[in-house]
């Protein structure tokens, strides 16, 4: 097989099956080249051992957590698996990692560790291939790297977020179980490692991360808000580059495991921050930028739009379920303990129908109303190359779904905040006694449970929710202006959606501060 004939197909924009990409709102935001500003960071990410060094400690903690899940105490609040993963990690992920460092979790994620190790046959080095000797040696050559496993291409029909959407919704349906039962958490997390490993043996590179991992789905969506991005420095340099090491790989590094063409990447969604492109670029043209919050503003397909719907629905449902006063709903969700199957099916039906049908339909109505309201009679003479007077409904819908990204993310941060403030004092306890076996490694095992500033929590939640609404309205309006040009029409088109967003905001506020 000729290496040149087997260069991986990049996940070019738009995702397969989606509509033509609408132009982004005109924007010239600032960027700070972090690798230039921080030479030690550049030195670090250029090392071949960089990713291994961040994954390994995480993997070892993960193995320890799985062990505690099976052999430690069944008491959730005293088992490090539950406390660290579902209280500490979740909060850190949604509130700090994603907004401040995009998909940095994917850089250190232990799920694909074993699969990638087998697939690459290496933990640190890159298995670059001399094109002349491509046929020699074991494994399959993809681009200019050699891989073990079957290296099938991921099916085109599944090259989107739908598997992740359904998988995430499925897992969240059983959240009442894995949030409290260490064994269920072990099954979920261990199962993900197993699935990742098997898929790495069957499919190319990080097909699991890109298309299957349920965590990756929402990271993909919310990483659009992040203040960090991996991008090329100069578009011209990439255009002139014939080597395409970032895509094809080589001696210095692996071709983008996420099927991206890094030099043309314009969104964070499918960049796992593995830094391979930074290593492989022969012109040192890839870098890590600091940028304003919410810099990626395009939703490119219905799969991404539905991810946004699912996430907002879940934030709302979880707020009702876990922070609300309706204990019977929690009992419905907790079917294996309470045994109320009728209630559980009502809960499942409610959750799935709300997330997949009801909320998207409710959201579509104001989009459609605004679209109709702002319609103008098309001119009798059509000038070639000029944008249509009335944007297509699908484009309008996708653009107006974007406000749900900052809105949903802030809703999730608001939801997660009380979890960490109220239950955070369990963290030092389980650090000292991770298994609940009576250890006291750091002298903190017997600290009393003490919620942190519980009286301030609602105020912070309100602030965060209002921030989310602010960014949602701002970005929605910018999209509207980009589509309609005239402010009057843009306002007309976006006003119904803005009203709906405000109503949802009020629902969250009522739930959090009554």
């Amino acid at each position, binding site marked *: 097989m000729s290496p040149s004939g087997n260069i991986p197909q990049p996940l070019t924009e738009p995702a397969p099956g989606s509509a033509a990409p609408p132009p982004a709102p005109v924007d010239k935001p600032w960027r700070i080249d972090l690798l230039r500003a921080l030479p030690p960071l550049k030195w670090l990410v250029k090392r071949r*051992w960089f990713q*291994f060094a961040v994954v*390994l400690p995480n*993997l*070892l*903690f993960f*193995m*320890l957590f799985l*062990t*505690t*899940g*099976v*052999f*430690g*105490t*069944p*008491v959730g*609040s*005293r*088992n490090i*698996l539950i406390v660290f993963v579902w209280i500490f990690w979740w909060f850190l992920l949604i509130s700090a990692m994603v907004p401040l460092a995009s998909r940095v979790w994917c850089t250190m994620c232990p799920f694909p560790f074993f699969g990638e*190790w087998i697939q690459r046959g*290496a*933990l*640190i*080095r890159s298995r670059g291939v001399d094109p002349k000797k491509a046929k020699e040696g074991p494994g399959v050559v993809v681009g200019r790297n050699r891989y073990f496993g079957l290296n099938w291409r991921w099916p085109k029909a599944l090259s989107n977020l739908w598997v992740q959407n359904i998988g995430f919704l499925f897992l969240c349906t059983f959240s009442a179980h894995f949030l409290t*039962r*260490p*064994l269920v958490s*072990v099954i979920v997390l261990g199962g993900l490692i197993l699935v990742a490993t098997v898929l790495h043996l069957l499919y190319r590179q990080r097909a699991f991360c890109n298309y299957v991992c349920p965590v990756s789905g929402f990271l993909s969506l919310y990483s659009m808000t992040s203040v960090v991005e991996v991008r090329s420095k100069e578009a011209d340099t990439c255009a002139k580059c014939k080597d395409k090491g970032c895509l094809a790989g080589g001696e210095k590094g692996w071709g983008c495991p996420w099927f991206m063409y890094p030099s043309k990447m314009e969104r964070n969604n499918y960049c796992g921050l593995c830094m391979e492109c930074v290593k492989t670029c022969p012109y040192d043209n890839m870098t890590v930028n600091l940028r304003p919050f919410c810099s990626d503003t395009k939703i490119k397909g219905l799969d991404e739009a539905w991810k946004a719907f699912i996430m907002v629905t879940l934030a709302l449902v979880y707020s009702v379920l876990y922070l609300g006063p309706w204990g019977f709903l929690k009992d419905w969700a907790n079917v*294996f303990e309470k045994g109320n199957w009728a209630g559980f099916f009502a809960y499942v039906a409610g959750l799935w129908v709300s997330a997949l049908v009801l909320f998207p339909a409710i959201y579509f109505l104001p989009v459609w109303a605004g679209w109709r309201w702002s319609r103008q009679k098309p001119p009798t003479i059509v000038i070639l190359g000029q944008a249509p007077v009335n944007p297509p409904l699908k484009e309008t819908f996708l653009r107006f779904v974007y406000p749900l990204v900052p809105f949903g993310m802030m809703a999730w941060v608001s939801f997660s905040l009380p979890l960490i403030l109220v239950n955070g004092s369990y963290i030092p306890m389980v650090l000292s*006694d*991770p*298994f*609940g*076996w*009576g*250890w006291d490694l750091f002298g903190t*095992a*017997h600290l009393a449970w003490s919620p942190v500033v519980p009286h301030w929590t609602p105020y912070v939640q309100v602030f965060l929710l209002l921030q989310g609404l602010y960014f949602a309205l701002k970005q929605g309006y910018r999209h509207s202006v980009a589509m309609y040009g005239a402010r009057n029409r843009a306002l007309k088109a976006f006003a119904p959606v803005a009203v709906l967003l405000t109503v949802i905001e009020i629902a969250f506020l009522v739930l959090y501060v009554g």
Partner: protein
Amino acid sequence: MRETMAEIGAGLLTLAGIIAATFYPFVYEAKSVEKRLPPGAQVITLTGVAATGTWTEENVDGGNYWYRHFAPARPVLRVGQPTLLRLKSADVNHSFYCPGLAVGPLEVHPGHVLDVLITPIREGVFEFYCTTICGDPHFGMRGQMLVLREGSPIPAAEPAKADKFWQESPPPPGQSHVARGAWLFHRNGCFTCHGVKGKGGVPNWNYIKDTIPPLSTLAERMLIPDKEGADAIVGAMERAADLKTLSSDPPFARFNAFLAQYQSVKDVIRKGNPPGKKDPKGLPPPLEMLPFGMRLSDRDIDDLIAYLLTLEPWEGGDK
């Protein structure tokens, strides 16, 4: 070559790390327990499981708690041999109390381990209890510790009775008040202290009367003179009649005194009644009439009393 060495090093580091993260905690645990043990001591771990009201010696962990039924503990200690009792809770707050060996009452919090070192000085069979209401099965949460002389054989255990009283289904609606009272008596675990059919006789450490008094003689103690009188009261209760309305044509002498007794029995059930100590300086009795006012409604208490009134073995009547 350098790359290959780094690769091998990374692989070995990964495998060693995984093995260490997975297995070292067990080694550490074994060593840390060993450190606390005096020479020749044994370790007995008792874990409280609220779901079945059990103190068990079996290992209860995140992997098996959800599906396994844990056997009740029957720990064996030896006279003169130090024993480290490791008390754990797998779910909620329990209290461990073994008055015969002067252990407790000790609060056992979920996810914490309470270590107690004891050295029994005399042989015997010692009851232990949970003395914090930890759920519906709480009232059956007790067991026996055997203290034997060194070398004595361990007597065979009686087969454990699997009475899951807390799971008993409620009687169908419309059943008699007495039948409902019988169900409540069983469902709430009253029989665990008051004995089957209220016959009493359950020993209670340092209790002024030594054993829990029977309830089967409650009718007599409530000043009901005979079976006819009891039947009249139960009959009225079955008709859901207000007992005070019988005052106009009392079914037996001293009926008003009975009414006062009735109220005081209700109060005891509702508010509880701490047991008197035989030795005022001794340990508190483990079994106590707890307030059931939060668990039982007024109607529940009436039904319970109606049932208890039927238990009296009247002379010449059916026993």
